[in-house]
């Protein structure tokens, strides 16, 4: 999905995540994926964001642990050029 | 306001309204039904609400909600219905909510329930028991005052006699010391403010309170709440002819009215007998009782049950002879009319006990 336009982005408070994976299918563009190696302090895998977020906030609405902060860009961002910036 | 001829149940209703009660919920059960009817008739006249709740549990729940909303609220039943409310009454103590609960009792078998709390955990409710209607209409107003003052349910103990006696009574509002505003009531106004209120038996404050109180610590404060009432109010009582009495009869509620009459009669015949009547069953007037029984060789407890208040009398008077001289007495209505409770029988009972007493002293 590299090359996707991102209309939004997230801040993920991974330390709150309990690894339930509810956010993964909730994300329509499928830009969230669970870690498979890294764990947080509590020992859970957690989601990471790939380019292509639409800021639809579905992930935030379903996440039981309020792990996400959702931002909508004023202008969509072409991530292939921007992704590395942050 | 001048005296009006009223049946007890209606007088109680009017007195509650006079005390500012604006919410009442109840489920019929004789002789509480009659009070409920009175409230249903008169509360709307002052803009109050009376709900014919679908059960006792729902009645106390509604009253709980209304109390949380800041209204002076009351509910009640007979002892049986109160049994159903025990969980709620106990937990309203923990939630620090005022409420007046009427037990229009059938007989006097509910003394333990009233004074020890029939519910779970460490709590007590003030329990007030009038002997006649004139006292009742003032005492029930006091009940609301105490409830608000201590933020604790208060029991008002009536019975079939009190519900049905018709007397001329004066129901003016009784004046009490001003109470602080209910700055804890819920009306939605603090919602969204960052410091929204909570009323809960589990915790006194929201998590973001300056001092958050953990559940375990909150549970441990139960004893303090009990002590606050014990220290904050004088137990109420009436006594008569005790100064030089050889024998003192202790009794509460309507039976005490008959005892008072019988003791008066006996005194007029020169018998050295006195009477003592706890008005607040809890806190129990132990000190006053001790004082009142100073000269007494023995103390008789006349209650229409298998022996309940006698425990409190014994706990108060650790070195006196204390005997139960009442007993369970019911007619077939089951409503708490006691065939044994007549001036003549009561008088005879006292004479008999006093005779035993002098026999024992002689022996």
């Amino acid at each position: 999905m590299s090359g996707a336009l991102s209309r939004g982005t997230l801040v993920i408070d991974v330390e709150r995540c309990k690894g339930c994976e509810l956010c993964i299918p909730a994300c329509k563009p499928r830009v969230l994926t669970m870690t498979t190696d890294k764990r947080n302090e509590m020992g859970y895998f957690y989601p990471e964001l790939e380019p292509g977020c639409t800021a639809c906030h579905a992930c935030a609405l379903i996440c039981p642990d309020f792990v996400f902060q959702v931002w909508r860009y004023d202008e969509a961002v072409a991530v292939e050029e921007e992704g590395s910036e942050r | 306001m001048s005296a009006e001829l009223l049946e007890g149940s209606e007088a109680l209703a009017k007195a509650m309204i006079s005390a500012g009660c604006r919410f009442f919920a109840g489920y019929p059960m004789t002789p509480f039904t009659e009070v409920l009817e009175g409230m249903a008739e008169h509360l709307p006249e002052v803009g109050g609400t009376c709900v014919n709740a679908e059960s006792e549990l729902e009645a106390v729940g509604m009253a709980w909600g209304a109390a949380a909303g800041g209204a002076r609220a009351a509910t009640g039943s007979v002892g049986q219905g109160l049994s159903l409310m025990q969980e709620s009454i106990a937990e309203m103590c923990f939630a620090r909510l005022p409420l007046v609960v009427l037990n229009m009792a059938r007989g006097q078998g509910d003394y333990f329930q009233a004074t020890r709390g029939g519910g779970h955990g460490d709590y007590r409710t003030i329990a007030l028991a009038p002997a006649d209607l004139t006292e009742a209409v003032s005492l029930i107003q006091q009940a609301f005052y105490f409830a608000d003052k201590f933020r604790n349910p208060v029991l008002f103990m009536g019975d079939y006699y009190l519900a049905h006696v018709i007397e001329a009574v004066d129901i003016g509002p009784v004046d009490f010391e001003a109470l602080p505003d209910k700055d804890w009531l819920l009306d939605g106004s603090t919602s969204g403010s960052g410091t929204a209120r909570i009323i809960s038996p589990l915790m006194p404050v929201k998590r973001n309170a300056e001092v958050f109180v953990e559940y375990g610590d909150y549970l441990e404060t139960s004893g303090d709440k009990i002590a606050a009432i014990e220290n904050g109010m004088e137990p109420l009582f009436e006594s008569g002819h005790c100064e030089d009495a050889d024998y003192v009869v202790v009794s509460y509620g309507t039976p005490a009215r008959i005892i008072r009459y019988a003791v008066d009669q006996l005194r007029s015949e020169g018998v050295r007998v006195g009477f003592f009547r706890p008005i607040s069953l809890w806190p129990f007037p132990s000190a006053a009782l001790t004082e009142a029984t100073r000269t007494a060789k023995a103390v008789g407890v006349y209650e229409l049950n298998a022996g309940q208040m006698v425990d409190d009398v014994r706990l108060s008077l650790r070195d006196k002879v204390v005997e139960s001289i009442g007993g369970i007495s019911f007619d077939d209505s089951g409503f708490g009319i006691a065939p044994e409770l007549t001036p003549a029988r009561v008088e005879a009972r006292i004479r008999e006990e006093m005779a035993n007493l002098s026999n024992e002293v002689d022996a």
Partner: protein
Amino acid sequence: MEREILLSGIGGQGVQLAARSLAQAAMREGRRVLMFGTYGGMMRGGDTDATVVIGEDSLMTPPVVDRVWGVIAMHHLSWPAVSEKLRSDGFLLLNDKVFQAENSHPGPCLSIGATAIATEAEMPQAGSMVALGAFAAATNIVRLETLLDIAEEVLPSYRSQFAEGNRKAMQLGHDAVSGSICEAWGVAEAVS
């Protein structure tokens, strides 16, 4: 002076209403009053009685009494209990025909067909009110006019349509008695 009057009968609200009317009238006449009624048994239709205490000052008498000064006995079924309480010099008013027990009351006694009179007047349930009218006539414990006055206020609003009938019943009872038999207060004592 305190006068205790016991009204007793079987079933229905009649006895209670008569007692209430007596109490209300006495209060209207400036006296202190106390009343207490009971219904026998949980079941409907048991016996019912009511005690009214009337006096000048703050009353000493409790709602439950052993001895009474006057009795209105509507039915023989409750007579045994009632008869024990009536003082030997007390006044007894009996509901003739309906009342079928032996009555050996030594004191003043009046027997009138209260139920019969009421039935006659197409108000079979108003026997107690007839008896009350008669009792008032026989004792002057309260005045008939006072009884007629309070006939409406003693009824719950949804029954006020019965006030007129009750007035008539009390009037009929009063008329059935030719004059005072046992003065409650003595002429001098009547509160104006």
